[in-house]
């Protein structure tokens, strides 16, 4: 007979969720990992179980295999293809799937819902053919599919350059890259360099290699693009900006990633505005615990720090859940957490630099009709 309550329900099968579920199961917690997709990996490691060793997505993507294998080998239960549509603070998780609707009760719930790309509401952004850079990456991951025709990448941040490189490797180089990072980003980032250069060396080196790979492929690159907008009647036809325009069949936008706070906001948890990352993030302690004892947060859903940091914060949340449920004592929890925290500090070291380098410019969007005040 199934238990009336499980110990630990993890929402999201990305790196944070997988690492948390794997460790929690190892610590003896009755654990269930719930996810919307058909296979584990979240978005960053999406479709990784079917990936080839020479995938154009590269080594950082393939590195996710280890987490997935460890999760598959763990004794944690797994509910894929299920959407969580409601969570009660008492620990009831409501799911809907093709088989219908159900409720699962857990003593502790971990929100590991990751991040999504910051929406880029430029004029014309709702025309068919305007998508996110991540969407093109998902097409590559799930089906070896690449843009047909002229694809223009526009925006800023590491993912922009990563997707450009991945498309080049897949035999479908973008037609152009329009980088929106304004000049002040580079100046402000340069001021941070002395402090973060050594800890951030790996991330910086990777970034420089990507940019070099893209430049070597001869992709036209325009910098400090302002006034980006999309023109077309029923679908995209042209990408325009203050000082130019290009015909395009597909526009891939990217202005960084922000935490997916849908569930944490629905639970009415406290959130704070992160001025460096320009996003809301749930208020959590150093274990990811919130003011609600049943709810904790791990991974990018609590603040953007990347995939490796997500797995580490997932493990901290699993340790905390185990202590909360009296399976391990607080001293053992703290002892096991120490090396994880050290690794987490290293992973987070580059973050202030990356945040400053790709800070979206704040600008008023152009309007196609006069603002309300002018019409009175």
């Amino acid at each position, binding site marked *: 007979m199934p238990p009336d309550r499980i110990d630990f329900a993890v929402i999201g099968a990305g790196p944070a969720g997988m690492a948390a579920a794997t460790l929690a199961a190892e610590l003896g917690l009755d654990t269930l990992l719930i996810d*919307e997709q*058909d*296979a584990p990996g979240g*978005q960053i490691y999406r*479709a990784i179980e*079917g990936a*080839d060793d020479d995938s*154009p997505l590269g080594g950082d993507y393939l590195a996710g295999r280890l987490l997935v294998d460890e999760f598959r080998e763990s004794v944690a239960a797994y509910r894929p293809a299920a*959407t969580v*549509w409601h969570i009660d603070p008492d620990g009831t998780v409501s799911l*809907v*799937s*093709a088989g219908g609707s159900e409720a699962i009760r857990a003593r502790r719930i971990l929100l590991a819902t990751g991040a*999504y*790309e910051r*929406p880029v509401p430029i004029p014309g952004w*709702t*025309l*068919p*053919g*305007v*998508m*996110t850079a*991540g*969407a093109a990456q*998902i*097409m*590559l991951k*799930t*089906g*070896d*599919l*690449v*843009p*047909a*025709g002229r694809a223009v990448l526009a925006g800023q941040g590491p993912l922009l350059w990563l997707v450009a490189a991945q498309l080049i490797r*897949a*035999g*479908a180089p973008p037609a152009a890259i329009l980088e929106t990072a304004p000049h002040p980003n580079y100046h402000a980032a340069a001021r941070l360099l002395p402090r973060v250069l050594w800890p951030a060396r790996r991330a910086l080196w990777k970034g420089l290699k990507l940019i070099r790979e893209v430049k070597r492929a001869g992709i036209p690159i325009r910098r400090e693009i302002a006034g980006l907008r999309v023109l077309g009647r*029923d*679908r995209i036809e042209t990408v325009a900006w203050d000082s130019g325009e290009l015909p395009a*069949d*597909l526009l891939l936008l990217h202005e960084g990633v922000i935490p*997916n706070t*849908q569930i944490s906001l629905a639970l009415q948890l406290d959130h704070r505005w992160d001025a460096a990352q320009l996003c809301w993030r749930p208020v959590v302690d150093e274990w990811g615990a919130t003011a609600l004892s049943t709810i904790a947060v791990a991974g990018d859903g609590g603040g953007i720090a990347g995939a490796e940091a997500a797995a580490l914060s997932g493990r901290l949340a699993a340790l905390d859940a185990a202590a909360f449920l009296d399976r391990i004592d607080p001293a053992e929890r703290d002892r096991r957490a120490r090396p994880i925290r050290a690794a987490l500090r290293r992973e987070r070291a580059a973050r202030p630099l990356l945040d400053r380098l790709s800070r979206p410019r704040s600008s008023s969007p152009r309007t196609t009709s006069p603002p309300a005040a002018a019409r009175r």
Partner: protein
Amino acid sequence: MFRKRPEPAPAKAGVPVTVEGRDIRVPEGVSAAAAVLLAGLPAIRETAVTGAPRGPYCLMGICFDCLAGSTASPTGRAA
């Protein structure tokens, strides 16, 4: 709007689907929204208020611009 990656790429048979009356093959496991993009449709839906054409935007289930009425998805999203 999207196509199969050029060679060298592993040859996989694909799954036959019909999109707006067109028979195409899509890689196994891709979303309905991906099939619509592969089929080259100009839009996946029209908005309720203005009838403006919309296509998929995020492909990860967060933007809800790919809502399609007759999919098997319990939440209506095609991606």
